[in-house]
Every structure is written in C-alpha cells, then in structure tokens.
C-alpha cells in the first residue's frame, strides 16, 4: 500500500504554492485569482465567511473541482490535479466538512477504500496498516470498529488516518471543528500540533477567529472569492482578522447588558423524557425562565439539550413533569395551542421547519394560514403583502416567490425568525440558532434574540457554541447526563468553568 515517493527537494520550496486560481460556477466567480502559499511544517488558516471561496479553493486543491485557470505546485513541483487521485499522488490529503466515510464499513476498510492493490483485499494487512499509522502519528483508532458506531470526533480521526496512511505531506481540514464539542476540539488541536512537530503542513479552514488565533502560524483571509490578505498569526489579533474577513470593523460588540428580569413566563418542573433509543435522556429538569432575560442551556452534545428543545417544541413526548407557559402546558400539546399561548420556537433542524419546495411567502405564513384566507381560499394578496413586509423588516435576501430550498442557511434562518418573531412571542425557545451560519448572519440572529429579550420576552437559548452563550446569556444552565448540573450567572461565567461543568465535574 505504501508507494515509494521521492523526498521533497531541499531548499525553500513551499509545501503548497497555488497561483491565480480561478473557479467559476455559472455567474458566480467563486475564486477570483486566488494565491495561497503554505510553508512546510506550518498550520495555515484559511479564513472567510460562508461563500468567501474557502471550500471552493480546497476542492480545487483536492481535485473535487477543476480550476478554470491557475497553477498548483507541491514542494516546488508543478502538478496537474484533476481528481482526488491526482491530489493524493501529489501528497495532499483532505478531511472534508461532510466526512467521506462509508458507515457500515470498518475503520480499516474505510482506510484502504480506493487504494487496494490486487483483487483480494487483505483485511489483516489493512488492520495492521491502520494500527501502525495510528501509533506512528499518535491518532488513536480501533481498526476493526464499524464507522457508523463511532462518535463524530472519532470519525474525524478516521478521516485524518485515511489521509496519513496515503503518505500525505499536506493535510487540508475543511471547518473541522464545526461538528465537534469543546473536548473533541482540544483533542483535535493536540493531534494537529503533533503532526506539525513532525513536519506536516496543515491547511485549516475556519470561520472561528478564536481557533485560528489559538492554533495557526499564518492566516490567509478570503473575501468574496479574493484574497483579502495573508498575515502571520502572531502579528495580528481577532479584531484585525474580523475586519479583513467582513470588510468592516467592530463585529463583536460588548455583551449587551440585560435589564431587570420580570415575572416567570416559562416554568419547568421535573421534566423527564426518553431519548432516541428509548433511554432516559432528560431527568427531572426544573428551571424558570423570566420575562426579559436570556437563559442559555449549555452542554456537550448528547446530554439532553436536543431532547429538552424537542419536548418544549412539542416534537417529543415528556415521560414526567411539566413545562408551563402561563396556563398552558407545553409538553405533549398540539403545536397550534402552544403557538396561541405565545410561545415561539426555532428548532435545531432548520430544514425540517420550512418546506423547501414552497415559496418564501408561503413559508412565512405557514404557521397561521387560518389568518390568511378568505372563506376556504388562501388570500394570496395579503400573503404577498405580509411577505414583502417581513422580508424588509428581517433583511431576508430573497423575493417572496423564491423557493426556500434555494436560500442560504442564513436566509432560511431569517425566514424562520421572521415567521416566529412577527407574532411577538412571550416565550422564545431557540436551539442552535446560528449553527452553520456565517459571521454576518450569526451577528444578525444574535442581535434579534437580544432585541426580543429587551422587548420583554423570555428567551431560552439551547446552544453548543460556548462563545454564543457567553455573548448572550443572562443566566446559564449546564446540562450533564440529562440533569441540570449547575447554574452560572452570565456575566460571571468563563469558558474554563463552564467546560468543567459540561464535562461533569462538580459545579463551582
């Protein structure tokens, strides 16, 4: 399986030198003469908003897309990369955002996939190879494990092993932390650091400034398909990078101070629920949400947050306990009753909350069609007028007749926000509201949540993004193994302490 490979030429040649990369999709110029130079043994960040062209550039480097113009040199040698096979042969390995793993197969099978010599697959040799690479680079993995049974962090390690076992000298990771919980992020960073010490070059794609600052040696910022600049990480800071990224200053306003919280609008008592596999996922959770405050629910994924959001949204049955908004019980209540009680919900699964094939206008009134009909017929004119108004008010970048399926994640979320907030809910339950959104959309969504709080609504924010929680929450509840492990005041919270509580250490 190992192929002999000439040593890289000595001297000052860069690990990767891409020059003038142009990639066009229809009318969209995704990469407009992009240059990228990665030094050997560096972790090089590629930073930019969604749609800035990061992923396109990486797809070009890995042969998943063929550039319309430009050249790529690896270790000083020009290479033609027209398919992943060419990229692998040139020594480039890639871990994509959506893992390229075959779930029902073993780790070893996934690693040798596409690189088997001869007709018969030697499974024993494949397992030995995985163990050997895993030990040499310090990336733990069980070669016989079935990938579908592994956690996301473990799967990512399998992806890294795949690249390493093909003797890559440049490892490209496309937003590797987007799917990881904080502990897994730390493990990943330790792994990448070890690889760097061994002389590996790493391209790290991200839109999280903190991670870029913590991990990388150099940063190339993309904006609108062009290079906005390349700087040494040590010579810059988050604000400077953010400005390069979005082209405007000050995108992290100081934490908006909350006013005085009012009367309880949501009272949760002893709420329990079963999880996906029928096991208890939520155990006797009790808390109160008051008017005019944002309460965040933090926790490592799989500790009951998803189930809490689903029970409060009426998508999952409670096995015990209650959740009352005013006189209305939320658990096991039909959605229209919940909605009339002044509860607005923005669930975790955005795409399941809109009908992709329907227009923006229909999606905006989907929850209140009864208010938009004349007799039995939908009142198209009023639906349109409503859509125009909400599109304007929530700066949705789409027309009323556009199908929602064609919208970006940020605009889908704005459609959902508009639909829910237009009804001025007294209680707002939002789950992972900014997951996968770019910086601009994230800021917008967060500012809307703050505006709701300031208007006097109680906001329950279920999020796995600690930065988001720290930026918004007045109070923070930490869920661990389905129980409330502790409560922290938002202004006094820090990552360290929350991280420990999320990991199940005793509450401070």
């Amino acid at each position, binding site marked *: 399986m190992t192929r002999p490979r000439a040593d890289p030429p000595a001297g000052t040649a860069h690990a990767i030198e891409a020059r003038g990369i142009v990639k066009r999709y229809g009318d969209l110029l995704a990469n407009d003469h992009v240059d990228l130079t990665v030094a050997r043994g560096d972790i090089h960040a590629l930073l930019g908003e969604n749609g800035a062209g990061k992923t396109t550039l990486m797809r070009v480097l*890995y042969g*998943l897309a063929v550039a319309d113009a430009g050249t790529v040199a690896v270790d000083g040698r020009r290479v033609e990369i027209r*398919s*992943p*096979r060419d990229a*692998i042969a040139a020594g480039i390995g*890639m871990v*994509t955002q*959506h*893992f*390229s*793993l*075959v*779930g*029902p*197969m073993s780790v070893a*099978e*996934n690693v*040798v*996939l*596409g*690189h*088997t*010599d*001869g*007709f*018969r*697959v030697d*499974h024993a040799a494949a397992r030995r190879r995985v163990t050997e690479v895993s030990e040499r680079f310090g990336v733990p993995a069980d070669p016989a494990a079935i990938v579908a049974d592994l956690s996301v962090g473990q799967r990512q390690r399998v992806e890294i092993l*795949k690249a390493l076992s093909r003797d890559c000298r440049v490892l490209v990771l496309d937003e590797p932390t987007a799917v990881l919980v904080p502990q897994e992020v730390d493990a990943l960073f330790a792994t990448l650091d070890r690889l760097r010490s061994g002389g590996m070059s790493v391209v790290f794609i991200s839109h999280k400034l903190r991670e870029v600052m913590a991990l990388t040696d150099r940063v190339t910022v993309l904006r609108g398909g062009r290079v906005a600049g390349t700087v040494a990480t040590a010579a810059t800071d988050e604000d400077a990078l953010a400005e390069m990224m979005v082209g405007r200053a000050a995108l992290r306003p100081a934490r908006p101070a909350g006013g005085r919280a009012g009367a309880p609008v949501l009272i949760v008592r002893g709420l329990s629920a079963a999880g996906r596999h029928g096991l208890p996922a939520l155990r006797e959770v009790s808390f109160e949400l008051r008017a005019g405050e944002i309460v965040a629910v933090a926790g490592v994924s799989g500790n009951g947050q998803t189930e809490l959001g689903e029970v409060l949204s009426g998508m999952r049955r409670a096995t015990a306990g209650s959740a009352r908004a005013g006189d209305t019980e939320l658990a096991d209540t039909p959605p229209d009753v919940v909605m009339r009680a002044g509860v607005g919900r923005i669930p975790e699964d955005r795409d399941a909350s809109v009908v992709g094939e329907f227009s923006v206008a229909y999606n905006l009134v989907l929850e209140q069609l009864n208010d938009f009909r004349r007799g039995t017929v939908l009142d198209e004119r009023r639906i349109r007028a409503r859509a125009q108004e909400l599109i304007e008010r929530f700066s949705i970048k789409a027309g009323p007749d556009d199908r929602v399926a064609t919208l970006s994640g940020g605009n889908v979320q704005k459609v959902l926000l508009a639909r829910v907030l237009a009804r001025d809910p007294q209680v707002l339950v939002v789950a992972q509201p900014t997951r996968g959104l770019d910086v601009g959309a994230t800021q917008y969504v967060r500012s809307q949540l703050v505006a709701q709080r300031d208007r006097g609504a109680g906001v329950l924010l279920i999020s796995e993004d600690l930065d988001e929680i720290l930026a918004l929450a007045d109070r923070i509840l930490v869920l661990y193994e389905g129980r409330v492990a502790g409560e922290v005041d938002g202004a006094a919270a820090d990552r360290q302490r929350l991280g420990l509580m999320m990991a199940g250490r005793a509450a401070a």
Partner: protein
Amino acid sequence: MTFLIDLVAATLRNATPLVYGTVGETYAERAGVLNLGIEGTMYAGAFFGFAAAHASGSLTVGLLTAVAVGLAAGALMAFLSVTVGTNQHVAGIGITLLLVGVSEFSNRLVFGGAGTLPKIESYALLSPFGLRALSQYALTYVAFLAVAPLGWWVLARTSLGLNIRAVGENPEAADAAGIDVARTRYLALMIGGALMAIGGAFFTLAALGSFTLGIIAGRGWVCIALVIFGRWRIGRGVLGALLFAAVYALQLRLRILPGWDAVPFELLLALPYLVVIAALALSGRNVDYPGAYLKPYRRA
C-alpha cells in the same frame, strides 16, 4: 420418505433461478441501483438462451447467449440510471416491458410458424452417489456451490466488492477515495444482469427444454423481495429463496394429496407469495437500505 426426498429435490430445483436472480439483484442494489429490469432480463435470458440453443444445437451457445443478453440488459440499466440519471423505478420497469416485448415478438418471428412447441434436448440431470435428492442440473450445483459463495466472497473480500459496497453506501466518499463511481455501478449492474439472465435460461435450457409465454411468472419480482428479506446479504437471500421454493414445491404436492382437493388450488398457488409477504412483514421492518439506494450520483 419418498415424499420428503422429492420435496427436497424440488426445492433445490425451484430455488435455482431465484438464487441467480437474488445474487444478481443484490449486486445491483449493493451498488445503489434498484434494478426492476430483473423480470425482463430473466425473461430475455430464457428466450434468447433457448433460441440460440435451438438454432445452434448447442446448450453452451445458448447459455453464453443468455449471459450476453444479461450483460447488455445490465449495461442498458446502467446507462439509464447512472449515465442519464433517470428515475430507477421508471428505467427498470421500462427495461422489463421492453425485454418481455422483444422476447415475445422475436418468439413469434422465429417460432411463430411452428405447429408444435419447439423443444431442445435440455441439460441432463447429474446424480452423484445415486441420491435422489441430489439429482439436479449442473446449473443448480453451480448456483449453490459457486454463485452464492463466490458472490459473497467477491462482495466481502475483494476490492471490487469493497468498491461496489462503497458506491452503494456513500458515492461521495467513494469518489473522494478515487473510485470511479459510474464504472463500478456499470460493472455491478452487468454482473447482476448476467446472473439474472442465467436464472431465466435455467427454465428453458434445463428445467423445461422449451420456451412458453409468461415463463418467468413474476419470479424476478420475487427476487426483489428476497433481496430485501435477506437485508442485502447473499446468505440470507439464498435462505429466502429456499424458503419460497420449499413452499412452492409443497403446495404443488398438496394439491394431489387426498383430502386437500377441497381447498381451491388457486389458494394453494398463492401460498408461496403469501409466505414471502409474511416474511417481509416480519423481517423487513427497520431494514437498513444501502445509503445511496435509488440515488443517481452527480459530482457537486
């Protein structure tokens, strides 16, 4: 005792075309393509295998012709579902309609004038050790001793099998790993098509020695159900084929037993199909379809 031995022999014989069809369909579906062309492919294998054997006087020529027809049918299914990316249900049913029609039309052209049903000297039975239960056609031995175990081995233990499973589960991952997704699906569908056609030819070249209209009688569809019953595993699929064949053989024999003539024979005839439906209902819940089932693959 004679009753039981006959039943075992008939079960193995009846299961033979189902084994070819089920293994063939498993290859197609593990690669991510539901091949509803199976009924037509078996039908065309039966007719063209017979016609070639009749014209040449050689059963080998007949069998090879069936294989060629199956390869072509698989390639056509691949062209429609992989290259063109049409809906697999439509492509498969279209191929079945086409091949049944072409076979029946050709039958009329070639044998239409014949007053009596044309017959060929079909394969002889092998009777090792003089055991009646093992008195079977060579194609039956090949099905159980070669096609099923080899079919499993190739899928589980070879790079071709690994590639087929990968393109059927996650073609994006396979593509990223440097596997030619389209080529792998073509291969799987053509291998599958050839096996289906041999399954069809079993009727004309071995069991009957003649071709009659409607000869496949829905056995292709039975194979589709057996693949799901077997959860895309060849071993379980073959077990399902044996179960169906056993019930089929049993109901044929029940009809002539004293006391059973009160039961309408149509009901008995339906028995194997009811068993398949019952088995599917019991085992078909919560099955894990191949990840890329029914999905054409296009690079983003």
